[in-house]
């Protein structure tokens, strides 16, 4: 728990953690706060923000912007967290096998990884969703598929470095089975950089999802921040609040995740922490 302590002493990370905690609470409490749901037409059209009933205004169909943002947290978090978990799992497996066994298998797996890395990730994700039907499952799958290669590369590098440490060789000599060496002896030692990378991947996944929804390829049944910006785009000069508030939500959430990633990096690698943070 020393790591938690170090993390929360990092001012940026503490702020980031507070923001993410708030986002998680909003996502969980959305249906209690706004039982009617985000698609309900509650007021007049294009009501400007900071009025009494609808603090962030309403859109062209009279839907409450604040309600939509609160419900949007659900989609953003769900997509980001699930796709990151899937991507990290794929990346860990590919990287671990590649780095541990080396040689031909490594060559093969790394060429495949490179194949994925040569295609710009956003366009690749859009193509994948266009091929599948656009729903939340395919969005998660697409984001996972474009996000795992950096994890695989990172894990492979760490495995290559640790593979020939004496404690791993000792395990081989003791007769410990290969899967156990990979998962019990080596993996716990490579997990810290992966955790840092994962926190940044969540942020990236939120951006990807927003971009996909913005293009209208999102799940039509779910309210998301990207969809809101996409919808508000055409009326941005008359109703700026339709695009600006979800935009702020994205910026703040992504920033918070980046700060956490930064803090995690310092907390997990105390020796690399830059200077004395007085």
């Amino acid at each position, binding site marked *: 728990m020393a790591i938690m302590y170090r993390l929360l002493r990092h001012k940026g990370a503490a702020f980031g953690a507070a923001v993410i905690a708030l986002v998680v609470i909003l996502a969980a409490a959305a249906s209690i706060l706004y039982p009617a749901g985000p698609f309900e037409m509650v007021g007049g059209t294009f009501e400007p923000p900071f009025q009494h009933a609808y603090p962030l205004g309403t859109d062209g169909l009279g839907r409450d912007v604040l309600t939509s943002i609160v419900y949007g947290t659900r989609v953003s978090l769900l997509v980001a967290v699930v796709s990151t978990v899937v991507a990290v799992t794929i990346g860990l497996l590919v990287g671990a096998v590649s780095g541990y066994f080396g040689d031909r298998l490594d060559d093969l797996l790394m060429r495949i990884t490179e194949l994925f890395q040569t295609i710009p990730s956003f366009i690749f994700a859009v193509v994948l969703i266009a091929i599948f039907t656009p729903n939340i499952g395919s969005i998660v799958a697409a984001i996972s598929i474009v996000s795992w290669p950096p994890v695989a590369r990172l894990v492979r590098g760490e495995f290559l470095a640790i593979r020939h*440490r*004496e*404690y791993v*060789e*000792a*395990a*081989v*000599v*003791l*007769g*410990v*089975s290969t899967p*156990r060496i990979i998962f*019990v*002896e080596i993996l*716990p*030692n490579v997990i810290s950089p992966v955790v840092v990378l994962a926190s940044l991947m969540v942020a990236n996944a939120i951006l990807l999802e927003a971009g996909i929804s913005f293009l209208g390829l999102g799940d039509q049944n779910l309210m998301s921040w990207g969809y809101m910006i996409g919808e508000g785009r055409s009326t941005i000069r008359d109703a700026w609040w339709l695009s600006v508030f979800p935009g702020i939500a994205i910026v703040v959430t992504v920033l918070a995740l980046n700060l956490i990633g930064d803090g995690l990096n310092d907390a997990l690698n105390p020796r690399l922490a830059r200077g004395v943070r007085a």
Partner: protein
Amino acid sequence: MSDTPILRIAGLSVALPPGADRAHAVHELSLDLHPNRTLCVVGESGSGKSLAALAVMGLLPPEVRAVAGTIELEGQNLLALPERAMRRIRGRRIGMVFQSPMTGLNPVMRIGDQIAEQFRFNGRDLGVDPRRRGIELLDSVGLPEPAKLLDTYPFRLSGGQRQRVMIAMALALEPSVLIADEPTTALDVTTQVQILKLLRELQERHRLAVMFITHDFGVVSEIADEIAVMRHGELVEHGAASRVLEHPVHPYTKQLLAAVPSLEPPPRAPVKAPIVLQAQALQKTYRSRDRLFGRHREVAALRNVDLAIRRGEVLGLIGESGSGKTTLGRVIVRLLQADSGSITIDGTEVSQLPRRQYRPYRKRVQMIFQDPFSSLNPRRTVGQIVAEGLLAHGMPAAQAHARAREFLRIVKLSEQAAERYPHEFSGGQRQRIGIARALALEPDILVADEPVSALDVSVQAEVLELFEEIRVRLQPAMLFITHDLRVAAQICDRVAIMRRGEIVEEGPTAAIFATPRHAYTQELLAAVPGKSQPVLGHSAPRPVLPIVAEIEPT
């Protein structure tokens, strides 16, 4: 005793950052350096000897500070000098040679350019021709073809050659003081002899005042005029070399001297037990291939190596770096596969067995590693580490952990150690954990690869005692790999001398040490530092133990 001191350290205290295990890395240290004399500062790791040297150079790391005392170079207090002025002292007035010849030179710069840098930043006004001076310098440290060497990159040089280059660089601007921090520790013994000789010659030629930092009393007895012994940052004993070596006063000095293993092998009866491990005609060649163009480089690490070890016997495998001794150890525990040849355990050929069929033999052949820091997984508790092998061979968890505790006790660690993580232990304790891990499987064959090389002498003596005890109690056939002939003399029944992948000589330890036949063995024995110093070296006390199996057979 010569004239006035050139460098005076008086009452120097170096403070450690708050939260360190002690307040001062160096506490009230006073030492004088005289021209043409060598002061050896001796101490174990953490004694503050290196920080004292760095304080003289003004190169203390940012978190430690010199808080009291003075360092006077011909009357000028270096501690009071601003960084700009200090920069003119370094190199010009005080030269320094560091420990690691492998990382001390910039790998992407030619030797000549690195030497020339000395003049660029320090000697603009000296009007030297860097090339001509470079040739002179390399020549003076005994490097062949200096002109050609100036244009080569460091990777082409051996460790000893690099250390010569570093010495040449330290002396480039003709300083009057030379600080050498463990300059020969990373070198092979035969190279070490040459470097020590070179340092002595250079000292006489330039009337250098040398501060030589080391942990090795053998080296000390070769070159010291004066000896200062440090412990926990304090100077415990200081005096003329012969006096300190022959009549040490402080108990710590006595203890350090006593911990140096003797080069005189104790009498040992030949072991008559049956042969457990036999290796025949082992060959191993490393090939590196340039994948794109198919060019490759070959290094023969093992050429036709034969060896046999009996139950309860310790065979010492002695060699310098690159001799193939580590490769041989790894082939025997099957971390590496030999290209050809056979390995038999109790008469069964095992080297050709496929992985799955070899698995039961893993239990019987165990290894102890050199580095007590990288050989233990930092994320697992000591109990888990020691029990891992037992679990891998199918012992139920509760039983395995109970046995792990038992073996921790055998290596003289408390059973509570099982709950703790490796970083909570010292180097010597960690090495004991590594030994417990290997012993837990009760192997018939134990390969120990330089198991005491990374340890301080006093800790080394304790671990060697433990090995002696293991030999008596558990009677494995042991392959003890070492570069240190003193250690080999104390622990081995027989020794095999290895050079360039071949065993050049093999026989009972006492016979080989008394009458080495092969020229290389003679050279190795002649190179042992401090061999002519009779006060060095006490035989390790033989623990008298009943030969009873205290451990229930599994």
